[in-house]
């Protein structure tokens, strides 16, 4: 097996991975940085983020406001030391991207413009029209090219972490174009592989978002934190799940039901006027808005469309000029995929799985319990997002903690020796058997699509916007069966060259494990908080559950869920208040 030695290996080259690579290269240009990704960097799903990135910019705003919005938005499950650090770093990181050329939208006097987002007291969302993630990703990717110490391995698929004496030793990967396995020996490893929205059938997430890094870390003994918290974005296009940015509401768009009624006023978000108004109505947080859709659906007040139940997101009153300037991508997407020109007609929308709040357990240093192993971005759980992420905090999070991970991984790499070849290769051989088995199994009784569909179905049925003990128990049981059935999965493509059938099967195995941590953590959290809503336990229970869930892998069994205290520094848990009473 080929072996590459590097000081720092970064798995995933989206926003977090690229930011980490740049930070590591700037921290010490003498260290070698190897950036691995299963896709070319510009295909990473950061590209699909639309609305913007949060960071205090206006004189009347403050770090305290950003802190309070984030902590209450997260239903007090955020670690407050991490949030304090995050809000303080946010403006600096955003300024850096401006210096690197990100084409931020501007005010008439040439300053960076900001727009309001849901759950936000004062507007602080920096935006590049409605393609902010796209512009940030390309800016970071292009900027990364100027650092000679950063070497990319594009379309190289990492399958496993290698551990030596309890600390990180590198990764096992294979080159997709040749199928050739390779060991990357590294003093430090940073996982930046994004979320796991593809566990669900209806999601804004691209095909690549299969939670590979979470699963790798989980198998290597790192706990997955707060996996029961899955964000539904309230406005996706029916049919495809394509994201219609919160910026559409930030700019003044309204949501109405079949009676043309702004139904959010019935769910603690009103009164509807004056509008637009921060932290109220359509600018409430995502969890509350998605839950309101479900409630309306139970009452039969959704609009019946050829795609099933929808609500209408109406932007007509914004006028064509504002839509063309601020929301051109939304206009294009709605026209192309549902045949609606938003200038003349409302957009049909429904909630759609969007973001994994949980992830690889990290602390404020982006470090995991495994020395030398770091994680940043959506795959990680620091946690600044708690039980519900505020829109536009995730792009900033990948900058802030991507940079932290890069710097700390560099510092760690300077102090430890290169891991031994012998140990790493022996481990890699063991892991590689799993991959080879998929290629060699000719008489499998299960198909990738069959198991993937079963996984998607059970996650949606049992682990959706509202959950119950019965629904979750059924999903947990189904997932245990799927894990067993996965051992018999067979693929059609046996070739070495660009085998997407093989990568699809490995991704499926990862997703089944992740789905199980989500459902099991949800089953054991017998309270409702943020995005985790239990019909059988409708109240928040701080006495029992002001805690992070920590799912640990147990070989051959269901994961073991333990709990860890939330870091509370200066904001005691209180009621989340939006609408007219919001502060």
């Amino acid at each position, binding site marked *: 097996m080929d072996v590459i030695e590097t000081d720092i290996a970064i798995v995933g080259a989206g926003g977090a991975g690229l930011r980490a690579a740049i930070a590591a290269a700037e921290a010490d240009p003498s260290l070698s940085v190897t950036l691995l990704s299963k*896709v*070319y960097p*510009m*295909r*990473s*799903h950061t*590209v*699909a983020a639309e609305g913007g990135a949060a960071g205090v910019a206006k004189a009347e705003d403050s770090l305290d406001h950003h802190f309070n919005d984030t902590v209450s938005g997260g239903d007090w499950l955020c670690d407050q030391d991490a949030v304090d650090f995050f809000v303080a770093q946010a403006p*600096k990181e955003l*300024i*850096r991207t*401006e*210096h*690197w*050329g990100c*084409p*931020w*939208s*501007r005010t*008439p*006097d*040439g*300053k*960076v413009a900001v727009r309001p987002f849901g759950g936000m007291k004062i507007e602080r969302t920096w935006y590049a029209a409605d*393609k902010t993630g*796209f*512009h940030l990703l*390309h800016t970071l990717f*292009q*900027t990364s*090219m*100027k650092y000679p110490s950063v070497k990319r391995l*594009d379309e190289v698929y990492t399958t496993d972490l290698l551990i030596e004496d309890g600390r990180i030793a590198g990764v096992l990967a294979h080159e997709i*174009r040749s199928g050739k396995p390779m060991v990357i020996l590294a003093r430090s490893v940073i996982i930046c592989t994004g979320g796991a929205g593809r566990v669900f059938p209806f999601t804004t997430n*691209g*095909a*690549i978002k299969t939670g590979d890094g979470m699963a790798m870390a989980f198998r290597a003994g790192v706990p997955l934190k707060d996996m029961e918290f899955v964000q539904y974005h309230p406005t996706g296009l029916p*049919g*495809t799940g*394509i*994201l219609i940015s919160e910026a559409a509401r930030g700019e003044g768009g309204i949501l109405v039901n079949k009676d043309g009624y702004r139904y959010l006023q019935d769910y603690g978000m009103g009164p509807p006027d004056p509008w637009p108004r921060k932290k109220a109505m359509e600018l409430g947080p995502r969890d509350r808005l998605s839950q309101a859709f479900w409630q309306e659906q139970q009452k039969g007040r959704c609009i019946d469309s050829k795609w099933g139940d929808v609500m209408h997101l109406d932007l007509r009153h914004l006028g064509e000029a504002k839509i063309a300037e601020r929301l051109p*991508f939304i206009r*294009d*997407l709605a026209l*192309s*995929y549902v045949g609606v020109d938003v200038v003349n007609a409302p957009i049909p929308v429904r909630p759609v799985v969007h973001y994994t709040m949980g992830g690889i357990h990290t602390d404020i240093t982006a470090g995991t319990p495994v020395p030398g192993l770091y994680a940043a971005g959506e795959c990680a759980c620091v946690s600044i997002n708690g039980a519900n992420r505020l829109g536009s905090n995730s792009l900033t999070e990948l900058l802030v903690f991507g940079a932290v991970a890069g710097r700390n991984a560099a510092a760690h790499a300077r102090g430890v020796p290169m891991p031994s070849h012998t140990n790493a290769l022996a481990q890699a051989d063991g892991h590689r058997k799993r991959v080879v088995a998929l290629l060699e199994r000719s008489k499998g009784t299960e*198909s*990738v*699509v069959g198991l993937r569909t079963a996984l998607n179905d059970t996650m949606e049925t049992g682990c959706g916007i509202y959950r119950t003990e019965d629904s979750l128990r059924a999903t947990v049981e189904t997932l245990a069966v799927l894990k067993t059935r996965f051992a018999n999965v067979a*693929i*059609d*493509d046996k*070739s*070495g*060259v*660009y*085998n*997407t*059938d093989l990568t*699809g099967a490995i991704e499926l195995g990862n997703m089944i494990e992740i789905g199980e941590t989500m459902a099991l953590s949800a089953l054991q959290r017998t309270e409702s908080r943020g995005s985790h809503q239990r019909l059988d336990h409708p109240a928040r229970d701080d006495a029992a559950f002001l805690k992070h869930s920590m799912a640990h892998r147990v070989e051959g069994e269901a994961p073991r869920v333990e709990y860890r205290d939330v870091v509370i520094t200066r904001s005691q848990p209180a009621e989340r208040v939006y609408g007219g009473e919001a502060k």
Partner: protein
Amino acid sequence: MSDTTTFTLEVLRYNPESDDVPHAESFSVPYQEDWVVLDALNWVKDNVDGSLTFRWSCHMAVCGSCGMMVNNEPVLSCKAFLRDYLKDGKGTITVGALKNFPVEKDLVIVMDSFMEKLEAVKPWIIRTTEKPVEEGTFIQLPKQLKRFKHHTSCINCLLCYAACPQVGLNPGFIGPAALALAHRYNLDSRDQGKDLRKDVTASEYGVWECTFVSACSEVCPKDVEPAGAIQEQKIESSIDWALDHLIPGRKAR
């Protein structure tokens, strides 16, 4: 979903381990009014042949992965609706890998050359001195942003390389997307690196290779206008050349 009309998806396939040359293979695929060509490919991969190979991810025309030839035109397959190619859900749609690139397997092209060209134009902000973060952001007026904004929209989907006759004739040609990106940075009020990029953009593989057919701008799904960017660079390059000859010593930078 009860519609049972089917159409023929004819895919140009190639596996370097078993094929000497690409060959067409036809699949009968159920027609769905909302489906794009990418959905049809995924249906085949899931239901007929798991070895069918293509790149895709976002399904919303922004990641740039799924460019391919559909009925011999370069398009994003996630935005190519079946209904625009078929009559009453019936007929044939042909699909092949993007032209002007070596084929890796089936619909997957080898894009190493593009990645090298992208890097060659130095697509990052170049400044003589870096601005400290403590000094805040640059002032950039909306009209200054407007000057280059459209050239920032490139998703690297490579449709323009498949459409460009010059890329076909001269594989070394830097090509539309990378030249447009160089121009984007040259026009950015924060950048001071135009002279450094000129080594590549005004070289024998640069803007002068372009014969202004404008096929690139026509197929661009994001209105990046690479053809316009290249013509503007030609004009600047000509002026530079003239000035270099009129003013002795100017060329030294």
